[in-house]
């Protein structure tokens, strides 16, 4: 899944007074919405937005920035713990604690194939180098914030995670946050919650101890329906949800893809909580088979395969040595594939026109 677009008010740096504008009619396309300069003003806010999206669809709702409970009734299975249950799950974490994609591996085993894949994948951004002026550095920062926010909302992760802000109460209702709402931008109170115009915002940066009994008391006064879910769910393992990063628009721009991948795939460039194999499970780069003559006309469908064979896969193969320079926990190199008995690097990549790399983390 890919909820690719974040609210533009999470970004700034533009002099455009109409930064927050959008087209009024949901049925009319308008390409002017993408505004503001990356990275996000506040990574915690960015993560909280996507976390609340996740909670809306998978946890029945969420507490908004001020603690008001918004109820969706949705209970989609994003994390699908059933897929990682059983014998495979028992062996699903290696001694370093990195996830193994059990479902994908099992399926491939049945097909006589090896390599990673499968499970549910949350794609972080779509063709992001065309949005907000993203650089590898800014995207990596935003990626980490989003992964942390989603994991927190869904209860994924270890003891460093805390999803309280999405269930039951919201620290957005804490006295400090409420004070920040009225505080002028730049004051001490406003520093923690962004500019005063943005109002209070929930924090995700491991500072949830700030959620106080007073905040809980305030939350109880909110005149809103009770959520259908509670905060009684056990924490899920990291490999309950995989993430797909980069997702650049054009594989044919080789230098851009390689530049981004070299930064993004270096674990030292990521937040310590976002260095595991489930977070960095995939990188994606999109290709357009129309360059091979593929169109919606069925008579041209073979053009898709010739595009993949003649234009796409050669580029992927050419990049493989570059990928192998990284830690195997992040990628996905020919050597690791060989460990699994796959003879060529080609077999280690998903042959997608919307393409993601993954191989036997």
């Amino acid at each position, binding site marked *: 899944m890919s*909820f690719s677009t974040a609210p533009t008010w999470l970004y700034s740096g533009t002099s455009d007074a109409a930064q927050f504008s959008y087209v009024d009619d949901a049925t009319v396309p308008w390409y002017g919405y993408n505004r503001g300069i990356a990275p996000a003003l506040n990574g915690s806010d960015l993560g909280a937005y996507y976390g609340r999206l996740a909670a809306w669809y998978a946890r029945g709702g969420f507490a908004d920035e001020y603690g008001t409970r918004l109820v969706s009734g949705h209970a989609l299975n994003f994390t699908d713990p059933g897929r990682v249950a059983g014998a495979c799950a028992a062996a699903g974490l290696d001694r370093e604690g990195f996830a193994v994609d059990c479902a994908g591996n099992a399926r491939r085993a049945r097909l006589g194939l090896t390599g990673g894949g499968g499970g549910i994948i949350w794609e972080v951004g779509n063709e992001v180098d065309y949005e907000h002026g993203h650089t590898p550095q800014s995207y990596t920062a935003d990626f980490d914030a989003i992964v942390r926010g989603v994991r927190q909302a869904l209860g994924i992760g270890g003891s460093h995670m805390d999803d309280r802000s999405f269930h039951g109460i919201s620290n957005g209702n804490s006295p400090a946050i409420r004070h920040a*709402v009225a505080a002028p931008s730049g004051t001490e109170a406003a520093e923690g919650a962004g500019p005063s115009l943005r109002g209070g915002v929930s924090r995700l940066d491991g500072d949830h101890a700030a959620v106080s009994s007073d905040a809980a008391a305030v939350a109880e006064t909110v005149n809103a329906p009770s959520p259908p879910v509670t905060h009684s769910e056990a924490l899920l393992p990291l490999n309950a949800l995989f993430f797909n990063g980069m997702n650049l628009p*054009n594989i044919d721009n080789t230098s851009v893809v390689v530049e981004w991948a070299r930064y993004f795939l270096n674990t030292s460039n990521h937040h310590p909580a976002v260095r595991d194999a489930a977070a960095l499970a995939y990188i994606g780069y999109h290709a357009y088979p129309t360059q091979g003559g593929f169109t919606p006309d069925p008579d041209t469908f073979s053009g898709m395969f010739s595009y993949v064979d003649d234009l796409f896969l050669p580029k992927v193969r050419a990049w493989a040595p570059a990928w192998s320079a990284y830690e195997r926990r992040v990628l996905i190199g020919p050597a690791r594939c060989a460990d699994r008995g796959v003879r060529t690097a080609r077999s280690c990549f*998903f042959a997608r026109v*919307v393409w993601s790399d993954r191989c036997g983390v």
Partner: protein
Amino acid sequence: MAARVAFWLALAAFYRVAADTVTLVNSSVSVSVQWATVTGPVLAEPSVQVVSQHLLLRSQAGELSSENSIYTNSWAAVADLGVRNARFAGWFPYAKAGVAELDPPSGSALCGPAMWVQGQTQPFTLNCSLYGGIATVEFASFGTASGACGAYAMDATCHDSASLTIVQNACVQQPWCTLSPAMFNLSASGCGAGVAPYLAVQVQCADPSARHTYWDFTAVDS
């Protein structure tokens, strides 16, 4: 650059087969295939990418009350494909369908939607029913105001001077009110030719503890 509804290939099994015979007969070509002979696995399968756009909304032309047959049939067709993996992407060309919180939290100030670029067409409701009703109208301008909720600034060169009165009459001491661009006088706005005015409005609820966010999944979930 991004795709529309596009086919893609995803992880799984197609098997290449050996072309056994190629025979030229006059100008025609005869090819026979040994399907049982596997020359090598390719981790690929036909799948689908779906990018949110208006034709895939549950309702047509922004009328969220009527079922859109394109929506029904398109999603049924996607389901019929039986793909193991499908990529769904909501992105900015249809902001209301892809972004659930288009306006930032605004504290005690309750505002209408942000300023639109392509023209304001839809009525909107300011709702203080949980907070003692609408107490005051702090700002109202049908024109080309700038700023954001909490810090709007009127543009004197494009402003319907009756804006504040119209909004006060419609909203003050009401639990909620619905405002529409049709309530204002474009000819009186003083806007230049080609300028599309919009309504920027900010009110306060009677209950000073009221805090406002703008989460809206109406189109996102459609």
